[in-house]
């Protein structure tokens, strides 16, 4: 058992170290999104390219369960498994629970060296990374990153969801537990509380392993940060958006804000 444990820890560490982890789709998937009775719900946290098949376990330390009242609830059960972090909790208040992993600020370094095909990647404290860049490095990206990975579960009627005003997030015009395949769903993308304009939002329905294309639904936000989705089918979806821009005048030269949402589109 011991070698396996070591291996799983290695996997998790390498995931954290790799800026490619930013490119993997991260998702918190509960066994149910809408309930009519108080129930215990379990959710898995994983990162993968195939939706929704567990691949790389995601750490649970920062995952919060926020009740409709706004109170942060205790998770009854957390377990790091090799390919997923697992959680269990009671959904017993009427309204909407938010399960979110809102990472703090992280710094990533990515660069190339002459004659070397593979890029070099590192992660850690800003000043250390800055000092670690060799003089002959090319294509240097020193990235300041923030991210939010979340999902919502509603018992009974949905309750209002308020944006935090920090980072890249969604203000739901259509409640995330009221997405239906026979009507459009509207949302507003915010960056630090202000409309995030012209940002591509990419949604992918589950079951990518069993089809020949990703079948992405892509919508670009308008001047008000608004995006309207028409869902091709009912089912569970992953949605993500990112702001990835080069900046000047800071110790870093790249800003990355990621947002990931898991939800279901209900059949009419």
């Amino acid at each position, binding site marked *: 058992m011991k070698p396996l444990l070591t291996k799983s820890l290695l996997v998790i560490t390498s995931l954290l170290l790799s800026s490619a982890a930013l490119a993997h789709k991260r998702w918190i998937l509960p066994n149910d999104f809408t309930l009519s009775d108080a129930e215990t719900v379990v959710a898995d946290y994983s990162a993968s*390219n195939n939706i929704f098949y567990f691949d790389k376990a995601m750490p649970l330390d920062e995952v919060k369960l926020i009740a409709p009242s706004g109170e942060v609830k205790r998770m009854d059960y957390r377990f790091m498994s090799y390919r997923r972090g697992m959680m269990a909790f009671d959904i017993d208040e009427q309204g909407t629970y938010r399960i979110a992993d809102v990472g703090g600020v992280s710094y990533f370094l990515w660069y190339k060296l002459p004659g070397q095909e593979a890029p070099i990647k590192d992660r850690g404290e800003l000043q250390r990374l800055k000092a670690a860049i060799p003089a002959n490095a090319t294509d240097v990206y020193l990235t300041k990153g923030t991210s939010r990975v979340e999902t919502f579960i509603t018992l009974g009627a949905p309750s209002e969801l308020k944006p935090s005003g920090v980072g890249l997030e969604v203000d739901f015009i259509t409640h995330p537990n009221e997405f239906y395949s026979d009507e459009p769903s509207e949302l507003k993308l915010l960056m630090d509380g202000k409309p995030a304009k012209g940002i591509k939002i990419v949604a992918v329905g589950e079951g990518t392993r069993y089809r*020949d294309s*990703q079948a992405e639904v892509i919508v670009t936000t308008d001047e008000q940060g608004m995006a309207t989705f028409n869902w091709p089918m009912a089912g569970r979806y992953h949605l993500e958006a990112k702001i990835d821009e080069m900046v000047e005048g800071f110790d870093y030269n790249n800003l990355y804000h990621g947002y990931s949402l898991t939800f279901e589109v209900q059949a009419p």
Partner: protein
Amino acid sequence: MKNILLGLALLLFLPVSYAAKVTAQITIPKLNVAEYHRPYVAIWIENKKRKQVAQITLWLEQEKWHRDLRSWWRRGGKSLKLPVDGVSGATRKPGQHTVSQSIDLPAGDYTINFESVREVGGREYIKIPFSWNGETVSVEKQGKTELGQVRFTIAQN
């Protein structure tokens, strides 16, 4: 004596086999996507029983994704010992690529198979029938998503 006769009889019924030079041309399209990974590509020949009889090209990287070349995996890839000398290699950039192999192929009906799959991308599978009797045959088809034009030529070596 009986055995010799039997052997002779079998020989007469066995299809003639020819030394063949096969050339496959494949275009990997340049795609404008947020996250691009080079495709895994397999090109192979199958007989009428859908058994793989010749591997022409295998461009692969991590073993984890080999099974995503679903048709290739299903029809024999899963039991193939890799790497195959002169056949398997690293993934390639978008553009036109030409590969050729020398094989022995009995006369008969076959298909040439092209499969391409991209991580966080799509998959395309093209199968074109051809008959081989020692005379030069050339077949081609236009891919739609993950493959551009594909062409296959078989001629006596």
